[in-house]
Structure formats: C-alpha cells, structure tokens
C-alpha cells in the first residue's frame, strides 16, 4: 500500500511538472531569442543601457499571421539595439484593442503601436491621443517627404480622419470575396465555367445547391461587425451613414438598404442560406458542407490549407448593373506612444512594417493585400498572385475599396451593437427589414443626438 501510494504521488508530480514546463517551453523559445537580442545589446560597450520597450498590439492569432509578426519582431530586435519590440496579441479583434487601449490609457500605460480597425477610425481619432505619421515623416530625414505618395490614394483615405488629419498608415487591407466549393456546385448542376456575377445569380445558385444536394447553399460571414452588411447595402446603392454639417447620420434604412437585407433574409427563410456567426461559418465551409461563402480574403490561407475540395474565389457580386462597393477591412497602424523616445522607436517599427519587403511578406503570411502601388505593380507580387490565384479576386477589388463606416461619437460602440441586434432580428425572421431598419436607424440617430 505504501509503495502504491508513493508511485501514485510520484506519477501525479511528474504530470504536474510536465504540464507546467511544457507551457514554459513554447513561450520560453520566443522569449529566449528575444532576450538573446537584448543580451547582445547589453554586451555592447558602455552606450546602450536598457533597450526601450515598444509594445505592439495586434489582432493576428497563431493561425492568422501571429507567427509572422513574431518573426518580424525578432528580426527587428536583432538588427538594432535601441528598441525592443514586444508584440502582444489582443482578444476580441478591433473592439478588443480599443477596449484594452481605453483601460490601459486610464491606467497611464498605453502601448506604443497598435492596429486600429478601419471602422474605428472616427471613434479612435476622437477619443484617443496619437501621433500622425505625417508629422513623423516631416521630422525624419531618412524618409523622402513623398513617402505617402507610394500608397494607393483610396487606401490613404481609409486612415484619414474627416478633418483631413492622417491618423495612421494603412497596413492590413482585406476585401470581401466570394469563395466557391466547385465540387458542390458541380453536384448541383451549377455552371462552374460562368460563376455568378450578380446577387440574384448567387441566390438562385444557392437555392439550386440546397434543393439538389444535402449541402447548404450560401453562408455570409457575420463576425462581430456589420462589414458584409455594409458591402451589400452600399453595392445596392444605399449608404450606411451620411455626413452633413460635420455630423454623422445613419442612413441605411433607404429602400435600397431594406431591399438588400430583405433579399438575404428571404434566402435564409427558404433554406438555401444559413445564418451562423463568427468562426463557425469558416469551419462549416472548410468542412465541405457549404457551396458558397462570402467572406474576407483574410480567411483565404486558412480555408485553402484546411479544405480538401476544389476552391476558387471571385469578386463580390454586384446588384444588377450597379457598381460594386466593397468596404475595406483590416487595419491601419497608429502610434499611441506618449514619450518622445517611445514615439521614435514606434516610428522605426512602423517604417519597418510598411516597407516594400514588409508588405510583401505580410501578404505571404496572411493573404492581406498591400496598399502600396509599387508593391502591387512589382514583379514579385505578380508572381505571387500567379502562384496563389485565390488572391487575384482581392487584388482586383482593391480599386473598389471604400471606407468601412463606423459610427462616431461616444455612443459609437452602442450603435454598432444595435446594427448587430437588427441584423439578428431580420435574419431570424423576427422582424421584416422594412420595419427593423428604420427603427434602428432612428434609435441610433436619437442616441447620437442626445449623447453629444
């Protein structure tokens, strides 16, 4: 009995040790190489002292660009000794970044560089302190004053506030595309040589798929934002919000907006389209159960590696002859450091990330499209597109990229939530679009008026 007890205790201790140490192992590897850089810095004679810590907040998880960022940070830290970049993954995507920023700013400890979702441009620039890259470019002699001209004009608009201030540099740029599971389309008898180019064609293809096969016809990405909703409403000729006299008014309840939403809700009602949220739509498509998926190009590398069927992408469909309008997803880099030293280090890090090689590598690691004209027209990028045809549709869509609308003012985040609640209500058939959209639009506008 004593022996048995001893063996059991020993086994339990071994299990405990292995679990705790394996956790240390993975983080140990990353911090090991990062501290290696810092150690060589302190080995340098006299000059340095402690390298200044540059905290970089990002939303790229382990399966979506996170490892690429860690590699960048290691390379950056190795090639110089003044600054030490510490990347930090933030939960909750762009909303999470701003929530954490709000909390850390209140605590007096803001990070140096952060990714801000394009939709939060207005909310961020009105509520937080930042340093405009335009100022830093002026004061930096190593950068040409024409630095900004290298960016596509419509992409710079994505990170420029309403009053013309450049808030940050566009970084991750994604657009929505249509993914097709050709195996399912063939099974349902949909013509795979002429894939749909309008929403009517998409919905009827989805109906055909759900009628003739056991698969779901269409799923539209619904993360904790209204991105695809904006794409559909604006492509049909409506608009999410309008700015008049410097005030932003919600305007999505026009006839075109209602029509686009109701068509989507009807497709869900007739069973050809399913309304599932967040990552579940990605895993449903990857598992080969959905014929058509409307989602960010940023999902392409995960879908490509996780699926075993014939996969193609096309541009988002248009509504009849109306022009396509695609809200740009992704984020821009902005400098929230407060001390002069950290601002300099942050700017060095931003320059590193937004260099031509930086953007090309970033595309390779994530599937985001580079916003710089020289990169888009370079032969390396064109070669890369040839080897990764899924990105072709996204590269074509960049010209149609529009600002991703966010509601401004202190009630901005509540307004976003109301949009999501409205989407839930309409897609679940609880309310018609004709009723829900005007009601929510009024609520948002009233809330904005009272909160000034």
């Amino acid at each position, binding site marked *: 009995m004593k022996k048995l007890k001893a063996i059991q205790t020993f086994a339990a201790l071994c299990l405990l040790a292995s679990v705790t140490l394996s956790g240390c192992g993975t983080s140990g590897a990353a911090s090991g190489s990062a501290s290696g850089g810092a150690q060589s810095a302190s080995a340098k004679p006299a000059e340095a002292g402690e390298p200044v810590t540059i905290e970089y907040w990002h939303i790229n998880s382990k399966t979506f660009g996170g490892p690429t960022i860690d590699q960048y940070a290691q390379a950056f830290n190795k090639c110089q000794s003044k600054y030490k970049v510490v990347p930090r993954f933030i939960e909750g995507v762009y*909303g999470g970044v701003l*929530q954490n920023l*709000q*909390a850390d*700013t*209140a605590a007096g400890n803001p990070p140096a560089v952060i990714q801000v979702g394009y939709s939060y441009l207005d909310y961020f620039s009105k*509520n937080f302190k930042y340093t405009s890259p335009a100022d830093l470019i002026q004061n930096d002699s190593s950068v040409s004053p024409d630095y900004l001209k290298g960016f596509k004009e419509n992409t710079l608009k994505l990170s420029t506030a309403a009053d013309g201030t450049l808030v940050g540099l566009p970084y991750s740029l994604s657009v929505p595309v249509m993914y097709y599971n050709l195996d399912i389309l063939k099974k349902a008898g949909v013509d795979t040589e002429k894939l749909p180019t309008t929403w009517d064609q998409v919905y009827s293809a989805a109906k055909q798929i759900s009628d003739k096969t*056991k698969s*779901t016809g269409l*799923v539209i990405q619904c993360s*904790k934002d209204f991105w695809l909703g904006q794409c559909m409403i604006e492509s049909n000729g409506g608009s999410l919000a309008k700015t008049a006299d410097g005030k932003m008014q919600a305007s999505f309840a026009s006839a075109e907006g209602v029509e686009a939403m109701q068509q989507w809700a009807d497709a869900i009602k007739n069973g050809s389209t*399913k*309304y*599932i*949220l967040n990552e*579940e739509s990605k*895993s*449903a498509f990857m*598992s080969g*159960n*959905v014929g058509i998926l409307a989602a960010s190009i940023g999902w392409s590398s995960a879908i490509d590696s996780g699926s075993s069927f014939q996969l193609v992408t096309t541009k988002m469909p248009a509504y009849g002859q109306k022009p396509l309008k695609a809200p740009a997803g992704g984020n821009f880099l902005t400098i929230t450091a407060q001390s002069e030293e950290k601002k300099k280090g942050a700017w060095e890090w931003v320059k590193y990330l937004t260099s031509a090689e930086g953007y090309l590598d970033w595309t390779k690691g994530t599937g985001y499209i580079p916003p710089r004209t020289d990169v888009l027209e370079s032969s390396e990028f064109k070669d890369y597109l040839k080897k990764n045809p899924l990105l072709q549709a996204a590269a074509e869509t960049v010209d149609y990229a529009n600002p991703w609308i966010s509601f401004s003012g*202190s*009630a901005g*985040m*509540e307004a976003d*939530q109301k949009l*999501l*609640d*409205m989407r*839930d*209500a309409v*897609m*679940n058939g*609880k309310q018609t679009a004709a009723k829900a959209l005007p009601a929510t639009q009024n609520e948002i506008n009233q809330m904005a008026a009272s909160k000034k």
Partner: protein
Amino acid sequence: MRRISGRKKREKLLAFVLLLPVLIVFSVFMFWPLIQTVWLSLYDWNMVSPEKHFVGFANYTAIFQDGSFVQILKNTGLYVLLFLAIDFAVPYLVSCILAFAVKKMTAFYKSALFLPSLLSLVTAALIFSWLFNPIAGPLSKLFALFGQRFPNWAQTNGLVIVVLSIITSWKLFGYNLIVLLAGVSSIPLELIETARLEKTPPLEVFFRIILPLSSSTGIYTLIITIVWGLQWVFTPINILTAGGPDKGSLNIIYEVYDQAFTFFNTGKASAWGLVTLLLFSALLFLEFRYVEKGIYYEN
C-alpha cells in the same frame, strides 16, 4: 463580579481585534467600491475622459424604460431555473445514489463526474461550439442520419439559453456534486437503513429524511448555484453569442459588463449593478424570512 465583567470586556476586545483584519479587507475591497458604484451610477462617464457629467437618476430611469429590461430579467430567470434543474436537483439525486446505493467504484464515479469541472470554460465553450455547429458539427450529422435538421441554436431564442446553461453545467455540476455528496454523507446510515427495512419508498426517504437533514448544505449549494452559475455563464456568452441573437441570451450580469466594457457607459453599468444587488437582496430577504426556519443546522 468585577473579575467576570473584566474578562467579558477582554473577550469582546479580543474578538474585535481578531476580526479587524477581515473588516479592513472587506471595507477596502467590498464596501468602498460599493459606495463608489452608488456614486458613479449618478454620473455619465466613459472611464477615460477627465470629466464626469452628473445626471442624477437618469441612468435608472433609462434602465427601467429600456424595452429590453423585461427581456433581460426573463432571460436571467430562465438561466437560474436551468441551473437549478441541471446543477442542483440532478447532483442532489446523484449524490444520494452515490452515498447510499452504489457500493463499488464510488471513487471512480466521483472523479469522473468531477473531472469536467477542472476544464477551462473557454475550452468547454469551443468544444461545444464545434459539437453543436448546425452545419458541420457531429450532432448535426447524426440528426441528418434520421432525416432531421439540427436547430440553429445560436439564433433560436430560448434554445440558446438552454445550450449556454448546458455548457456552464460542465463546470457547475462537478463542484455541486462534491459539496452535496459531503452533506448527504453526513447523514447517519442507520436512519436510511431503518427506513429501508420499513419498506419506505425511496422518494419519501429522499424528501422526508435526506433533504431535511442535509438542508444546511442544500441551501448553501442552492445559493451558490445561482451566484456562480450566473457568473460562469459569462464565459460561454462572451465567446459564443455576445448576448445575441438580438439580446436573446443577455442576462443581468452580462448587461453590466456590456454597458461598462463594450459601450463604456460606466454610469449606466453601475446603475445596472445596483439594480442587480437590490434584486438579489430582495430574494435573499425572502429566503431568510421563509426558508431559514426549516433548515437544520447541526449545532
């Protein structure tokens, strides 16, 4: 006479001194924040700006006039009922079975039933999200075999709360089982044996003997189930539905979080917090008044 009163005084002083550390900690970490919360609920503040706007009772009127107030209360009620059913009633019965009916391998059953409680709720939420995926999950495939459609639970009012409660029971069940088992095991075995010899039906044994004698543990577990249940269900709600569909899975605790940390309405969140406090204080008062008399405390 003087010696006795002197001793009493010293005992009182000693008791006060011994309680002082706890009183200080409670004051700093519970009473002071509570007072701050009451004060904050009279203001409109976004946690960052240096200005706070005094709005008086506007936050409270906004809460009661909000169209979703009733729905949030209803949802909270449904969560509580489900927690009590899945994580109070069932563990109570299971603990009786383990204490009195199962003779062999009790240690195995105890460990097996407690094991899920060690799992992080984040992990549990992600596992269940995959399990219940209405298009690609294994349950949907099983349903398809019988020609049925697995419901899109995350978009169905009512069902979404049921699923979230099931995920939370992953953690709650094991804890309650262990506590209730301890309470039930303290009942003298002879009482049960005697009842059995007299051929008393098992349900009567449960309601007339086991329940009253373990009622002190029972009432503790009841209250803990409600409190911890509502706290722990926060994790699956946050990961899977964020309160949706259209507030279908919002409960009063999550609403406080949403107001404070998603919308940055710290004043309104404080008001919601106080409403919650008042609600549960009322329930606790009712419990003290009507239930405590029937509780058997061994000393």
